[in-house]
């Protein structure tokens, strides 16, 4: 229908360069030594110091307490990403199930209670949230890191939309066969939701892994630092140093960006479907 114009390709190639070159530069430059980067700037030709830089970033004990390594931060980011994704799926699937498949008092009221949370992002109530956490004694704990982020209805909204699209006949048939609510959930609804669960898992994992402000406030103890917190750290150390550790900063950035990028690229199909169907 449309004639292919080289101009279209030109724009797309420029767009691809615009989006991808910074990432490539970060990856490639991280394989040079700090002095080399300081002298010659960023690079698009791989250097020979990659192994030692990454080894240093991953295993050297750093920070004020001398306790935190890159591996610790990687593990914490992973715990945050996975914990958040799993928690979100469990909580919101259960809530959506109750809202869609049960007739009970106050259902409408509870619906509004839950969906009001869509209105206000965490950033605007960050200060009081911090105070609540500290009065609950949850600072510096994985619970404090993960659970408050779950206080939003994004997942519930998403699963509710999906459950509504499941044909009513399935429930009717299940009830004729004598299936109760638990059996229907386990044997019918969960198997049906597998693709949707995968999609939301990817979105939520990326969201959790990429959290910055909340982990920064919640964790003052270095053993709970995530990679995002480490990035702030490495930049603070820079101020006043002669030759900044460019290579290590790049290596840290690469460690922080590769897992979610790989997840999104590999599971593109599910990820896009989840995103465009659930939209926030």
């Amino acid at each position, binding site marked *: 229908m449309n004639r292919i114009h080289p101009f279209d390709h030109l724009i797309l190639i420029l767009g691809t360069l615009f989006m991808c070159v910074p990432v490539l530069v970060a990856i490639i430059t991280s394989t040079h030594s700090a002095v080399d980067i300081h002298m010659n700037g960023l690079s698009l030709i791989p250097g020979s110091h990659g192994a030692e830089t990454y080894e240093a970033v991953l295993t050297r004990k750093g920070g004020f307490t001398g306790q935190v390594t890159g591996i610790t931060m990687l593990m914490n980011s992973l715990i945050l990403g996975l914990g958040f994704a799993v928690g979100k799926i469990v909580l919101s699937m259960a*809530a959506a199930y109750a809202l869609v498949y049960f007739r009970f008092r106050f259902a409408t009221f509870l619906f509004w209670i839950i969906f009001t949370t869509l209105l206000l992002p965490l950033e605007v109530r960050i200060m009081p949230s911090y105070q609540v956490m500290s009065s609950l004694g949850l600072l510096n704990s994985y619970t404090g890191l993960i659970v408050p982020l779950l206080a939003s209805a994004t997942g519930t909204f998403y699963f509710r939309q999906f459950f509504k699209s499941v044909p009513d006949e399935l429930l009717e048939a299940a009830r004729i066969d004598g299936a109760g609510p638990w059996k229907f959930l386990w044997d019918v609804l969960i198997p049906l939701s597998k693709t949707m669960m995968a999609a939301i898992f990817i979105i939520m994992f990326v969201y959790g892994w990429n959290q910055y402000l909340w982990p920064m406030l919640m964790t003052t103890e270095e053993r709970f630092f995530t990679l995002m917190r480490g990035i*702030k750290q490495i*930049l603070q150390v820079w101020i006043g140093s002669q030759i900044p550790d460019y290579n290590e900063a790049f290596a840290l950035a690469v460690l922080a960006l590769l897992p979610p990028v790989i997840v999104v690229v590999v599971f593109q199909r599910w990820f896009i479907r989840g995103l465009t169907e659930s939209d926030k």
Partner: protein
Amino acid sequence: MSDLTHPVTSPAARPGRIRRWFTRPATAPSPAPSPAPAKRVQFDAPLLPWIFLAPQLVVIFVFFYWPSVQAVTSSFYIEDPFGFGATFVGIDNYRDALGSREYQRIAGFTALFTVLVTAFSLGLGLLFAVKADKVIRGRSAYRTALIAVYAIAPPVAGLMGMMLFDQHIGPFVTLAGWFGYEMKVGINYWDTASAMILISVWKQVPYNFIFFLSGLQGIPASVREAAVIDCRGGFTRFRTAILPLLAPTAFFLLIINITYALFDTFAVIDVMVKDKPANNPLTLVYKVYNDGFRGNDIGGSAAQSVILMVIVLVLTLIQFRWLERRVHYG
């Protein structure tokens, strides 16, 4: 059919109902949630739904409603910095915030920042989506390349931006030098602002690209063919036939992008100003954080939070009510 197409609301799947589809956006972005019972048949169990809802409700009450109420309450008090109680001051915190020159300056920059980030990231997202929708060769490669950056966290984007605009090693600084301009990101206000805007746009383009492409692929082939017959010129055809069909997606993205520019860019800004807010461009959400956690001005910070809450609330209500009604499809 491409995997980007919405399987349920895809109009192509229901060719006989195009007319009806025109009243709904292609990717069905956020229809206002309606509490009407979803199913004809439902379980009648008085206790069980509460068990299913309990975890979500507990989390929401403890970590959403309690802090939100606290924010509103403490915005009417001045808290003693040494923890000896609080004094009720009415709307003084609001008056102080809105009346201060600094707040107005930051609000002004936030507005400019939001407009530019939203405009550029929507524009580029749309441009790439239109082109990616057209080409056949290399389509999935382009798509992957344009989507990948979605997964990069704002602080990582900020860090990479810092490198690209670094005084010693930054290629953008060198580039500006060729034109005889000495770029000083972190020192010169507008240099820093430009870098922040560029990084924030870069980070947001993939999101818009995904939604625009998905929206484009939801436009039925019959409509496209009709448009080709009616309009010879490619641009006119796009403006008069395709763009109106993308309007719902665009309006949905508009709100999302404004919210992104207001809040999600916090990390980009925090990484770039490196704890030295003094002479740097800041946004309102950064000031909330800075006044609350650094300045220990809990009442003032809470008042600013509430102002932001009102802005978000208004935006969301516009999204739910107004835009859905005002978008016409001729």
